């Protein structure tokens, strides 16, 4: 069947089998491999993309069902394809600043789910962040830094600036770090 969809700003028209999952079409048909697949049971959320303004698990949608829709994946989020970190979306920046990832497998889905969450609730509590991301599993981080990253991105998107992150906490260069603490605690 012929399907037409706009993905990350580009319109594609392709022939797909009815059984082709949207994730497979994005990855194998369109070469947009930024969206990973983490499970067979619609549970992990790694494959989350935005379809017509709503977060969905792209492994649980047939490509034919997405005919005529507009899709944003992690690769189109910043509007730039060149990997230049200066153009990153505030949520992407916050995940880096707060170490919101380790292996990074869950990250595209976490970030897409976060963007959707913050669109609906710009000032979430920590509890609301945890519930808002309940459909996204991370096997590495233990979620603490993901929650921090999301709260920081929320603050930034509200125009209140990011929360202090791990990278920002660290002094500009290592030499500045050394003496203060140690001298203070050192025996006279």
């Amino acid at each position, binding site marked *: 069947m012929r399907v037409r969809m706009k993905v990350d700003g580009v319109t594609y028209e392709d022939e797909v089998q009815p059984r082709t999952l949207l994730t497979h079409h994005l990855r194998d048909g369109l070469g947009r491999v930024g969206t990973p697949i983490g499970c067979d049971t619609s549970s992990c959320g790694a494959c*989350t993309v935005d379809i017509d303004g709503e977060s969905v698990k792209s492994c649980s949608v047939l490509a034919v069902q997405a005919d005529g829709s507009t899709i944003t994946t992690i690769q189109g989020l910043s509007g730039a394809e060149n990997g230049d970190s200066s153009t990153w979306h505030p949520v992407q920046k916050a995940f880096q600043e707060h170490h919101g990832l380790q292996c990074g497998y869950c990250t595209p889905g976490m970030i897409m789910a976060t963007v959707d969450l913050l669109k609906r609730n710009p000032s979430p509590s920590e509890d609301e962040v945890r519930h808002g991301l309940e459909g996204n599993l991370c096997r590495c981080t233990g979620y603490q830094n993901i929650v921090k990253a999301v709260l920081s991105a929320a603050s930034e998107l509200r125009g209140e600036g990011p929360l202090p992150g791990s990278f920002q906490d660290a002094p500009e260069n290592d030499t500045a770090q050394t003496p203060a603490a140690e001298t203070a605690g050192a025996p006279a």
Partner: protein
Amino acid sequence: MIPPEFDYVAPTTLAEAVAALGEAGEDAKILAGGQSLIPVLRLRLAFPTTLVDLSRVPELRGVSEDADTLVIGAMTKHSDVVEDPLVQQHAPLLSEATATVADPAVRHRGTFGGALAHADPAGDLAAVALALDAELVAEGPGGRRTIPARDFFLDYLETSLSPDEILAAVRIPKLRGSWGVRYEKFNRVAQAWAIVGVAAAVRTEGGAIAEARIGLTNMGSTPVRPAAVEAALVGASDRAAVVAACAAVAEGLTPPSDLGAQADYRAHLARVLTARAVAHAAGMSS
């Protein structure tokens, strides 16, 4: 995994959908939000010849009023049910329970009708439909019929819909008078299915329970309406009386034993959660 091969049709009216389902024969299946069916296909647990996709049938979506009844289109997505002001006003138990279903991304695709037609006894919404005396409107080649919720759920994943029928809408009588509601869901992690869930709607008069309606999730192969407990609750005016009336809630039931819990633990949960849900709905905090 990649699902098995099937044909796909996407009708744009209910009449076309009924015709397409009839033409496709008995191994065809309806595709609603796909949040239960697509995982089943990916795991190759079903091999339908044709999928009839209802997602392009606008008349199956949305919430409206018909006098004292709320009418919810079968294809109304969980996320739309949660936010709908009519549902919040006239069937708040449904809003509350739907907000606990799965996670935001699944709620953006999964539908109210799909959840009922799927008839998983661990699903939260069947117990709510049962407790609220909902009626299910089915459309088939022979026309339209209305099925009371108590006659709809026959067994595990089995309903009284025939293979050539489509669930079109759900009719829920509005609660009138001083009703309170509560959905208590016990699960391991936020996104998980209920180990046991209890839907309660309670009407009070002068501080005592005048009427109670209860639906149990995952306490058998269908959702359960514990009529004897509902009757025993009438007149209860404090928490102790509620707890006493709810002690018999699991009697005669055969809840499943699985990785989530053994049957006796489910029976215990049902007693505790029913008392909690009823007391909360009746405004009895301690």
